[in-house]
């Protein structure tokens, strides 16, 4: 493991009115990676960003940057730069002066400023826009100027606070590619705040899923998608069928009144659990061959797949993604592999969860 560039140690943020925005946050950020803080609004992700940038003080806990504690270091001396949600470009300056702002404060020679600004504008694909007024730019262009203004200072870490949320769908997709590409080219650490799970999954090396001021789970997008720790994460990341069940023994789980072979273990016998099945892991077959039999209720054409809603005999709703359409009202069979079943314990902490996963995966 590389030496961490930022460490948050037991960070808690409480406001004067008693509201706790963050509770015991621990985070280790390694250099050169793309991190996402993912969670619904009000989950505290922007507060973490503000604490790292130095706009807000943590009530408790320590912020470390490159092996030094920086709690008392003012924002203007931290080697991080921020891309703000509403871009926060200076309206009384043109594009050049906005991008050059940080460099002029450092009293850099004019010629070098010019070179670096032109270069930064090239990186964000806005060459020749230097003398535009901010008010003349579209949302997407303002976004790029904000990124150029941050990266021109060559920060070690770039903090991005929902920078894509104001853009339309198409532009957002384009910018996702560009941001990811930019991060890999510049080899800067990105910490990206978003409430859009698709965005986080697509771009990140590592995701921190947050809710109510706590980090619920952290890991690679694939880990989090395949093995969500609890109901909230499973529901928030991607679409899922979540059912109550019972762990009969290791590698055997019971739900909708039947027993299935599964890939999870390390729980008490007959422990009550929740079972996650992703809609794309369910394959449609004949009722005779299916492990489950459901009746199709409605289906929607989503372009690349059909989204089918079906009900079993116990009135449990099933969401299925299929490349082929089915007939409404028809009985169909569903099959899935043991690995497609993911079992979640109630109230399990992330450390325990990871330890359990490691334990039975080694066996």
């Amino acid at each position, binding site marked *: 493991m590389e030496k961490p560039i930022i460490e948050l140690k037991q960070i808690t943020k409480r406001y004067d009115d008693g509201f706790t925005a963050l509770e015991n946050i621990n985070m280790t950020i390694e250099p050169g990676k793309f991190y996402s803080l993912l969670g619904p609004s009000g989950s505290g992700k922007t507060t973490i960003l503000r604490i790292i940038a*130095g*706009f807000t003080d943590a009530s408790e806990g320590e912020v470390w940057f490159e092996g030094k504690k920086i709690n008392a270091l003012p924002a203007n001396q931290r080697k*991080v730069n921020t891309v703000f949600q509403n871009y*926060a470009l200076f*309206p009384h300056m043109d594009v050049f002066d906005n991008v050059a702002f940080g460099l002029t404060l*450092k009293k850099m020679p004019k010629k070098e400023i010019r070179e670096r600004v032109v270069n930064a504008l090239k990186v964000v694909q806005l060459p*020749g826009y230097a*003398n*535009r007024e901010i008010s003349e730019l579209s949302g997407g262009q303002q976004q790029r100027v904000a990124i150029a203004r941050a990266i021109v200072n060559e920060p070690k870490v770039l903090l991005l606070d929902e920078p894509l949320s104001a853009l339309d769908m198409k532009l957002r997709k384009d910018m996702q590619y560009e941001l990811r590409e930019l991060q890999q080219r510049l080899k800067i650490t990105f910490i990206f705040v978003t409430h859009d799970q698709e965005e986080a999954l697509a771009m990140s090396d590592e995701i921190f899923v947050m809710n109510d001021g706590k980090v619920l789970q952290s890991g690679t997008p694939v880990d989090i998608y395949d093995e969500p720790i609890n109901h909230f994460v499973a529901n928030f990341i991607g679409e899922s069928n979540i059912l109550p069940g019972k762990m009969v023994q290791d590698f055997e789980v019971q739900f909708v009144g039947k027993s299935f072979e599964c890939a999870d273990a390390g729980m008490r016998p007959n422990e009550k659990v929740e079972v996650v099945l992703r809609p794309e892991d369910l394959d449609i077959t004949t009722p005779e061959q299916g492990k489950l039999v459901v009746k199709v209720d409605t289906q929607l054409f989503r372009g690349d797949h059909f989204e089918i809603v079906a009900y079993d005999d116990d009135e449990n709703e099933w969401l299925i993604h299929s490349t082929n359409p089915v007939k409404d009202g028809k009985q169909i069979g569903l099959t899935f592999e043991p690995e497609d079943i993911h079992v979640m314990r109630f109230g399990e902490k992330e450390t325990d969860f990871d330890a359990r996963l490691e334990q039975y995966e080694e066996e």
Partner: protein
Amino acid sequence: MKKVKVSSIYLILVFVLLYAPIFYLIFFSFNQGGDMNQFTGFTWEHYATLFADQRMIQIVLNTLLLALLSSLVATLVGTFGALGIAARKQKRLRSTFLTLNNVLMVSPDVIIGASFLILFTSLGISLGFGSVLISHIAFSIPIVVLLVLPKVNELDPALLNAAQDLGATRWQTFSRVIVPFITPGIFSGFFMAFTYSLDDFAVTFFVTGNGFATLAVEIYSRARQGISLEINALSAVMFVFALVLVVGYYFIDQYSRTRRQKRKNHQKAGVMIP
């Protein structure tokens, strides 16, 4: 169609009513007769007396100097006042300050003038240029606060964070982001304070001493002694002066706007080529 006509007649009527007294005054400034009863013939005589009147010219200069100084100081104090009010975190404290500010705006000049007179005499401050300057600064500050505050409130706190984030100290944030952003408010505050000071009669009348008079006070005392057409001539000169200022401002504004527009078009054309 008919509605448009009625409204334009109304507009014309309003402007005639507003401007008629001024033009009437200017018209008689060229009167040979010496009073405003009957126009007997054209003359420049009153203008000649006006420009030969050393005392009057001195008073005009005094008035301008007073307006300039008082509005400059008031702009400085008022701008920081507005920043201070906006920086209050509790809403109640903020609105209390704002209300206290507004009370000064609406309280009658006579009251302000009288209270200043009492203050100066009880403190033993001699009445004259100094006392008038202090009171003009005092009644101009609330005006500046009122005109700067909306601009300060418009300032997005994220802009200040952004400046800090890019390495700006508190002073640099203030001088490079806050001040340029609220400059339009500061300018309108300054000009408003300037015209209020030029205009003021009541407050000045109370706190001015023997040796010092502003234009308003002087015209009042002369008008009381009987109308001299020199006043008419002075009014005409000042009216033309104000007119030139307004028209000049209009053309400067137009010029800078078209230049900006031109530069914009230029750039767009330049960008579209590759």
